[in-house]
């Protein structure tokens, strides 16, 4: 490998790694990530169904059974109790405590309007949380009316109440048909569908699947965010050399293409260093001793090797592709403002690519996912996601990588031609036709 290129790589790498910004980002990104998870856990805990609920029961048969159902279960869901006895190995779902209080509101079809008025006021003044109106037909059509401050809020509470009402109503309807509700209680069974791979030796159990998907999601996000961050580094670096007027000193010693590649490779190593630090921290955090100390019930299952390999390959290729684009777009301009319009193009493509994870997630072999996992500007993200959800045939992976690598090569060539002319252009903002002319210029 040529020594000058190595010197450029070394300089780029050390300059970035020595900045405070690098270490702050390295510490901050996982902190923010964990912070978000922590906040979500807190939020989930705070989603307790809580409050007084008025019940306008015009069936005259549901209020007491509803209260009875609620008291009987306390804050336990009998469905889940049963689930546990049937499938004890299935992951434990956290049950949400509820603190609801029902009270009966008398009304007749004639007084209903009056009663509503009063209850509406109670809701608005926050004296009660909500009220239910059970019309006489409720036991036939299964529709109850929920009135609260917002139609959208309190989803958890509404679900809970719906569950209680359904059981109460079912028992009433069984009584009408002469069946003892106790039989229903005993006969009820909830079946969970436990996914397995159709192979003799299973590599992934359903217990690990959730974790693996979460890991893939995190990696997917990391590829996306790092291309963004390091792409911006490239852009700023190119413009810095141009604005410091150092670039002409450099190109008298180093070929412009080496200067560009050195910058891209050096900053790529910065990215890998950051991942290595995070990886080491993650390994440390999953050591049995540490796990016990942090009070986690069980350590993390190992991340599949294929996922890690795919992550590194697709991060590097995707990064190189976008880095070359950013270098080419930064070189002709004097500052970020001038480059802004053109920079929108790779940025939008990247954002679009990031929104397509759903295709790979839901239907990894669907036409949309397959096409997007070949298209070089989206394949780093999409093929990675497909591999981690359901590895596609080897030829597809090979083709995707080959197309991506070819695009990286082509883009680097194109970027190099724009770069070598652009970095020496000062003053007037060049037009797009001018930039194309640079590409066609002979060596």
């Amino acid at each position, binding site marked *: 490998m040529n020594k000058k290129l190595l010197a450029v790589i070394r*300089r780029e790498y050390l300059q970035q790694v020595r900045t405070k910004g690098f270490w702050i980002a390295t510490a901050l990104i996982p902190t923010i990530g964990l912070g978000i998870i922590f906040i979500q856990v807190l939020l989930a805990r705070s989603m307790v169904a809580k409050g007084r609920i008025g019940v306008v029961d015009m069936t005259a048969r549901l209020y007491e059974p509803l209260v009875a159902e609620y008291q009987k279960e306390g804050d336990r869901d009998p469905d889940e109790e049963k689930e546990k006895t049937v499938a004890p190995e299935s992951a434990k779902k956290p049950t949400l405590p509820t603190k609801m209080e029902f009270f009966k509101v008398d009304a007749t079809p004639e007084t209903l309007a009056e009663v509503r008025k009063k209850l509406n006021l109670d809701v608005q003044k926050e004296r009660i949380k909500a009220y239910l109106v059970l019309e006489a037909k409720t036991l036939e059509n299964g529709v109850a009316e929920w009135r609260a401050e917002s139609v959208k809020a309190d989803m958890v509470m509404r679900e809970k109440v719906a569950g209680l009402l359904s059981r109460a109503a079912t028992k009433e309807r069984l009584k009408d048909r002469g069946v003892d509700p106790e039989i229903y209680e005993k006969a009820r069974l909830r079946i969970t569908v436990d996914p397995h791979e159709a192979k003799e030796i299973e590599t992934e159990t359903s217990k690990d699947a959730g974790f693996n998907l979460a890991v893939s999601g995190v990696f997917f996000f990391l590829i996306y965010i790092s291309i963004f961050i390091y792409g911006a580094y490239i852009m700023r670096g190119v413009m*810095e050399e141009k604005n410091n007027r150092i670039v002409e*000193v*450099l190109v*008298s*010693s180093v*070929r412009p293409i080496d200067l560009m590649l050195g910058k891209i490779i050096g900053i790529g190593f910065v990215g890998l260093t950051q991942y290595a630090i995070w990886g080491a921290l993650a390994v440390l955090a999953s050591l049995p001793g540490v796990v016990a100390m942090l009070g986690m019930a069980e350590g993390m299952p190992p991340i599949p090797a294929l996922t890690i390999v795919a992550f590194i390959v697709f991060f590097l290729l995707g990064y190189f592709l976008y880095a070359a684009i950013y270098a080419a777009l930064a070189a002709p301009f004097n500052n970020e403002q001038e480059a802004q319009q053109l920079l929108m193009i790779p940025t939008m493509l990247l954002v679009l690519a990031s929104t397509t994870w759903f295709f790979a997630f839901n239907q990894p072999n669907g036409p949309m996912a397959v096409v997007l996992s070949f298209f070089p500007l989206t394949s780093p993200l999409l093929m990675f996601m497909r591999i981690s959800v359901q590895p596609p045939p080897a030829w597809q992976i090979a083709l995707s990588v080959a197309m991506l690598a070819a695009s990286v090569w082509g883009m680097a060539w194109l970027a190099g031609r724009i770069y070598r002319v652009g970095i020496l252009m000062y003053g007037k903002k060049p037009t797009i036709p001018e930039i194309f002319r640079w590409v066609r210029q002979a060596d």
Partner: protein
Amino acid sequence: MSTPAISLAGVTKRFGKFTAVDRLDLEVPAGVTFGIIGPNGAGKTTTIRMVMNIMKPDEGEIRVLGEKMNDRLQERIGYLPEERGLYRKMKVIDQLLFFAEIKGVDRPTALKRLGPWLESMDLSPWLQKKTEELSKGMQQKVQFLGTIVHDPEVLILDEPFSGLDPMNVILLKDFLAEFKRQGKTVVFSTHVLEQAEKMCDRIALIYRSKKLLDGPLREIKRAWRDRVPLPLPVEPEPELEAIFVKVVEESGLSAPSAEELK
């Protein structure tokens, strides 16, 4: 005769409809100090950039030390462009070592070579500072050291004196004189004729993309003796530069530090 340090044959460069350099023939013999003179916009910088292979000529051929530009050849040339600068956030020593490395000099050799220069230029205490913390004058010294750290055989400087403070002008002149003593070739462009007159063995005058005059300075002066008015004889008087140096010396004050300059 030995190979010329630089030779250009029929070199032309156009930017769109504008011809920046027009069929230029130029030969710089080895070991001379050569001045390219002419007003701004005459084509001096374009010529130098083509010699450095930063731009390609549309026509003609350029050779340096008998070779077409290549990686190895780059390492034998020191180049100080008109548009020059340093990495602002980089430490002075890292910066100098980087310049050495991209000229193919390994770090230990570069450090050994830099030692005496750093001492004589009072740069040693600043090695671990970031470039942006240095005064302008100090930065100019770093820039110049970066140009010669690989001990080049040919030095090409584009308007080297523009923007230099008086101390550094003297420093640079001394350096160039030393280079000449070592038999190295120095080529520099300038629009200040006085400098060219004092320092150069040979000059070329470029005006409106064309070479109008070329040759040893002394011969040129002899040839034009009868055709231009001669200056009136004047009493010898000291040069301002010499006075400046003396005054500074006798004041007993040390050179200002960067903090003071800020």
